[in-house]
């Protein structure tokens, strides 16, 4: 299916369920890249609002609304706090009922703006879903912990957050993948998740997933949601879809399902979608999570033709375990100053550990074969000239070099103690960037 066909299909569905009006806020460079993915998959560019610091946008997003922030921060670390920018974002919230916030929390502006946009949208009475990525471990613990603090803020004000820790992608990244290729995989997966949730909201069929049920599974400040999308076609597609979902390394052979406390399953297919297929899919999945509520949705999406798309969200509430992790690194992490983020206590929830919990839980399904083989190659070649190229300098700015030349004292010659990519033999205060006066 070419892009135009997909676009028409999406238009068709949007028209069918007119009451669902989604506005997608793509924040920062990664947000823009993900938005590009979605537009390639057939989303209407006018549904997007792009918020980034520089005005350079991919051509595909010409039709999107833009809120371009000043290149240099005006006040504090934000530069976002200007009333004008705020008003422009509020204006974009008119006439919609769902707001998707898409960002990579590794970026400075993204992690500051994403929770604030979510808060604005929530205050305006919209249903807010967040789609975010956490940085790779090698990007440094400081960035990790700040990203986690931002994630917690986002969770506090959104109705549901789907988070993809990039570190999980190692299993999907071949050895020689270039830097931009790795981030491309992450972008494709987040786009898949957005498409999956969007389909669940818009494709209304005989078996619906109610919004409150959906929010129950993927919402809440202590929730971790693993998600997966499998897209198959051909004979025995119900079995193949489940196998594909479970065989994926990011779902840890179904471990995420076993640890979940509630699961939402969406089965979407063309007009030939059979009840027996829905039954078979749910039966197979239930075997992996026998004692928890499974909420099933099934709908016919004519644009899918002979394909069967299976979307799974597995939610797990960490409750106290995560709160227990509300630790000490607040000293090393400066909380961003949100004018509207009234729950400043949320900023305290700086969770290195919760981040790890996230990493373990939020498992993603790799892109469907249609994308990986034909489309992906095409998209990769197209995007390699733009989004990813702008990302490389960001990653290279990681201030690791300074640490490498520091002597490790008495441990200079001993075997290094490496934990999650960090050399623990180096003094902690150096790795955390604490300055001694």
């Amino acid at each position, binding site marked *: 299916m070419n892009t135009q066909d997909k676009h028409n299909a999406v238009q068709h569905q949007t028209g069918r369920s007119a009451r669902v009006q989604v506005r997608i806020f793509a924040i920062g460079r990664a947000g823009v890249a993900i938005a590009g993915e979605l537009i390639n998959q057939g989303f209407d560019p006018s549904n997007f609002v792009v918020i980034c610091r520089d005005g350079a946008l991919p051509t595909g997003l010409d039709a999107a609304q833009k809120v371009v922030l000043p290149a240099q921060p005006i006040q504090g670390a934000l530069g976002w706090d200007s009333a004008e920018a705020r008003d422009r974002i509020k204006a974009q919230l008119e006439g919609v009922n769902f707001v998707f916030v898409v960002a990579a929390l590794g970026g400075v502006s993204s992690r500051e703006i994403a929770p604030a946009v979510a808060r604005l949208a929530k205050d305006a009475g919209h249903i807010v879903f967040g789609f975010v990525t956490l940085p790779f471990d090698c990007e440094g613990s400081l960035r990790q912990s700040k990203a986690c603090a931002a994630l917690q803020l986002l969770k506090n004000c959104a109705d549901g957050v789907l988070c993809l820790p990039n570190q999980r992608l190692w299993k999907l990244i071949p050895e020689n993948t270039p830097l931009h290729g790795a981030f491309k995989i992450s972008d494709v997966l987040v786009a898949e998740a957005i498409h999956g949730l969007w389909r669940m909201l818009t494709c209304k069929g005989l078996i619906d997933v109610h919004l409150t049920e959906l929010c129950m599974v993927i919402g809440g400040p202590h929730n971790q949601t693993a998600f997966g999308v499998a897209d198959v076609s051909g004979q025995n597609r119900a079995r193949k879809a489940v196998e594909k979902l479970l065989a994926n390394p990011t779902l840890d052979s179904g471990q995420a399902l076993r640890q979940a406390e509630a699961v939402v399953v969406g089965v979407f297919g063309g007009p030939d979608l059979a009840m027996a297929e829905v039954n078979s899919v749910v039966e197979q999945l239930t075997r992996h999570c026998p004692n928890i509520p499974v909420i099933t949705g099934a709908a016919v999406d004519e644009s899918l033709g002979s394909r069967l798309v299976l979307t799974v969200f597995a939610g797990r509430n960490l409750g106290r*375990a995560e709160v227990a992790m509300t630790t000490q690194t607040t000293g090393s992490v400066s909380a961003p100053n949100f004018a509207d983020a009234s729950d400043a206590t949320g900023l305290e929830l700086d969770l290195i550990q919760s981040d*790890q919990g996230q990493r373990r839980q939020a498992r993603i399904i790799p892109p469907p074969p249609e994308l990986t083989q034909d489309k992906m190659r095409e998209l990769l070649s197209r995007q390699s000239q733009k989004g990813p190229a702008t990302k490389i300098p960001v990653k290279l700015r990681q201030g690791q070099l300074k640490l490498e030349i520091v002597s490790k004292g008495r441990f200079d010659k*001993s075997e290094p103690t490496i934990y999650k990519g960090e050399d*623990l*033999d180096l003094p902690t205060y150096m790795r955390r960037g604490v300055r001694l006066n």
Partner: protein
Amino acid sequence: MFDQTPIIVGLEIGTSKVCAAVGEFDPESSSLKIIGLGQACSRGVRKGEIVDPELAEEDIRAAIAQAEQMADVEVRTVVLGVTGGHLRAQNNRGVHPIVSADREITEEDVQDAIKNAKVVNLPPQDVIVHAIRQHFFVDGQGGISNPVGMLGARLEVEMHVMHGNQNRLQNAIRVVKGLQLDVEDIVFNGLASALALLTNEAKELGALVIDLGAGTTDFTLYAQGVVRHTGVIAVGGDHLSNDIAIGLRVPLSRAEQMKIEYGSALVEDECRGKTITIKNSDGTPLRTISLENLRTIMALRVEEIFQIVAQQLHEAGLLDYLRAGVFLCGGGARIPNITKVAERIFQAPAQLGRANAMSGLISALDQPEFATAIGLVKFGSFKHKANTHKPLLPTGLKGTISQLFRRF
């Protein structure tokens, strides 16, 4: 002809000190008494592993000799404590179908299930150090501690399997054997500390023991009476000294001294703006150093160690099991305010552990540094207990070990 009260010696070859504890086990009353202690500065060990066998041998000899003198016994065998960053642990489940006609579970079925549970994917060069039984499941019903005599079709057992690099483990054993001492058993230091400090009640409630040694931090989590998690982080008190030496630009020995004299795991408001004056060997002032900086460096390192432990427990889903709290031991437990930091990070009560489940040298039992050595003696006493209970049955090594792991 032979002494009826067996002597058990626990030997810990630590990074800062070698410690030998001598215990006397009375089979009649099943009581254990610590009668001697020996210790020597350790020079040939880094991060819990021997890097200079000759120096290590000298230090072990000194510690053993001191213990022998104090307890007035001759040491022939020891229970050796091991640690090191190469030790890994995992929980594994073994399944055994019950095929007998009457579906009754026998001791053999239990042994078969345990055998299956021990089959883990070990890296090459690794050997199993401990295989500790947790709970049984009969036809999916959990929480069974002894299934023998029950009826069922499918018996499962959960084991906690700890493994480590064979060569590195052998290094320590070889050094001890070079002193004409037999190694009765090797025991993970963290497990030994937990044995020394925890009461049965604490093990049931759920307790975490963190042994903050000089070279490594070993931790063991007990819940529902069984070992649920163990781990080693090759970071310890030496790292604190090293951080101070680098951060404040002082020699390592001076850093060590400052850590002990002025150290704290918390940066309190009172210390802000205060300075310490370092003096030369002749007493003249050399430099002044900010107390706040010293404590910041220490606090960050201590926090990080606890965070890594908490993170590992969080990943294993065990943080909610700490109902009896956190018990700290090892030399690092002496850092002022360290319990407050532990309480904050684990969100559970934290205290210094005391080996109060035994009798003997009170001064030794109270010291957090000796917990591991005392725990090693306690581990050794389990073996004697098991032997005295079944004196007539030639159980063999495997049988003995399985009894050992029954419930401790």
